[in-house]
């Protein structure tokens, strides 16, 4: 088994507020291997972006990592401060944000934004950086890169901008990319292109990818393994085929039921009743039990079991498929 690029163990992020301590990430553990795309999926507010921010060290105070460890390429990074952490960003860990329009500084040419990133991490001359910048743009499929390198962000369309953002994230050659909802702000037709681009670039460079999204379609299209998050906790983790076709956790099952997939041929979309609880109003026991069609007294009383790392396990006392119906 090759060493994973990213390894997080029992990661917990806490935010102290007037109403108490909130835990948007609670005891989450997973690994990502080189060249592997791990999809992290869940509803808005489930904590998937927070986990990504924690890894790259960009949590906004007062949010902070209170427990757990993060290892990148074998080195522990969650306890790094200041300049040490800064050196990692871009060089070992790259990040792609959701909205390409606001990710780029409108007043700077994209060529300058590329070269400054390259120069910050790689020991090259200005000219070499410029060459690399043009090459990066070509690699992400920007036509006429040599001329476009002097353009401003607003002179590109949405899809092109996101390509530029990907080029920026990759130009210092990181081994891990965190993509936070990279396609949500794009047209459906462009989404597929961006996903394909991301897959292709990461395969060729053996980059590990944490693909954060709420869109099951994107997961099905791009991910190798998938991690499902609910109310801050990891509820299921496994290879994408298994999780999507034979989900073990009732929540995942509900999610799949509410996703329109051609293969499922249901007449009506199933809807999980209720809504994900707010972090300051979590139910006792398993966080999903009020909405779970199979919940029991035990589910309401005892906290759900944590996930065993490996594959196919779910954080549930009664993982699917059920041999017999539970009351």
């Amino acid at each position, binding site marked *: 088994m090759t060493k994973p690029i990213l390894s997080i163990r029992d990661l917990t992020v806490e935010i102290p507020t*007037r109403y108490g301590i909130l835990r948007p990430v609670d005891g989450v553990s997973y690994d990502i291997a080189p060249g592997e795309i791990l999809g992290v999926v869940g509803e808005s507010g489930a904590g998937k972006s927070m986990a990504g921010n924690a890894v790259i060290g960009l949590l906004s105070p007062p949010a902070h990592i209170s427990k757990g460890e993060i290892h990148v390429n074998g080195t522990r990074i969650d306890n790094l401060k200041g300049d040490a952490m800064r050196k990692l960003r871009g060089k070992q860990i790259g990040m792609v944000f959701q909205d390409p329009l606001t990710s780029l500084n409108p007043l700077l040419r994209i060529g300058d934004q590329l070269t400054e990133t390259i120069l910050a991490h790689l020991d090259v001359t200005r000219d070499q950086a410029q060459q690399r910048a043009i090459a990066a743009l070509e690699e992400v499929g920007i036509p006429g890169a040599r001329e476009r390198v002097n353009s401003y962000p607003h002179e590109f369309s949405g899809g092109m901008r996101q390509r530029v953002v990907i080029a920026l994230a990759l130009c210092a050659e990181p081994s891990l990319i965190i993509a936070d909802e990279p396609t949500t702000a794009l047209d459906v037709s462009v989404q597929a292109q961006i996903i394909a681009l991301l897959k292709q670039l990461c395969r060729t460079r053996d980059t590990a990818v944490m693909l954060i999204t709420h869109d099951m379609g994107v997961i099905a299209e791009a991910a190798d393994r998938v991690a499902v998050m609910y109310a801050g906790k990891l509820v299921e983790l496994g290879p994408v085929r298994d999780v999507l076709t034979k989900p073990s956790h009732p929540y995942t099952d509900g999610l799949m039921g509410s996703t329109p997939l051609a293969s499922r041929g249901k007449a009506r979309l199933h809807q999980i009743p209720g809504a994900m609880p707010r972090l300051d109003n979590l139910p006792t026991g398993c966080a999903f039990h009020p909405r779970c069609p199979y919940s029991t007294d035990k589910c*309401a009383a005892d906290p759900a079991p944590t996930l065993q790392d490996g594959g196919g396990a779910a954080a549930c006392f009664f993982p699917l498929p059920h041999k017999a119906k539970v009351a």
Partner: protein
Amino acid sequence: MTDTPLPQDAPLPEKDPSRLSLWWQSDFMYTFKRSPVAVVSFTVFALIVLAAIFAPLIAPYNPFDPGSLNLMNGFSAPMTPNAFTGETFWLGTDDQGRDVFSTILYGMRISLFVGAAAVLFAMVLGITLGLLAGYVGGWTETIIMRVADVQLTFPAILVAMLIFGVAKGITPVEYRDQMAIWVLIIAIGLSDWVQFARVVRGATLVEKNKEYVQAARLIGRTSPAIMLRHILPNVLSPVLVIATISLALAIIAEATLSFLGVGAPPTQPSLGTLIRIGQGFLFSGEWWILLFPAVTLLVLALSVNLLGDWLRDALNPRLR
């Protein structure tokens, strides 16, 4: 399945908290109580307002009753007995024998009165014009907004000075002192209405297209009725935030105008006028005639500004 409790086991419902206690515990009051700046500046401001309102009761002397003045009392230093009459004044006296402490109390009255009245005037004018501009639209709106734009190119205080100067030119000499306070209120108010009008117009434009307005029109309500009873209450909240800051600015504007000599006259002096008078005595040694009114104005301006600042931050939805 979990059991629902039987009716006789259910706990008694709690009494609904009163509206006052709801407000006291609200997020707004929470931020207030936690901010020492807000609490202190509010207390200070409240004290000043109270002192101004009850000035006739608190002031040991009435400085504007010519009969009670004794010129021989003039130029007494604070807390030292006067060489001629043996009377002692807390903060000394000015050149005419007026007790500085009393003049400050009465001066605060005028400062606060003019400030509040000016803001009220600006609000009424601004809200009315804003409602008209937003609701009626067309030429009315264009004219009002154009005038507003032109006026906004110039600093408010300049506009106020000009209005005061022109009014002075029109008024016959013998009435000038009496009318000064009222002219001052109108001048400051006229220089300040624009921001109210703009905000109200913007809000009116938004409200105008809402269903409750269309419904009111359908049942035959007249335009003024709609504007006043339906739209107005809904556009008031941003106005209140602007009003508090306007008050601070109006008080300072009044003080400045009076200091420059185009405001409250020496016969009805505000704090600004007192400072102007005091400056004349700085180098001849009677420092108290300047210093005490100056410090009073400093405290008033600071507290009202800090309060307004805090209020603006507390009510700003973006910062939460």
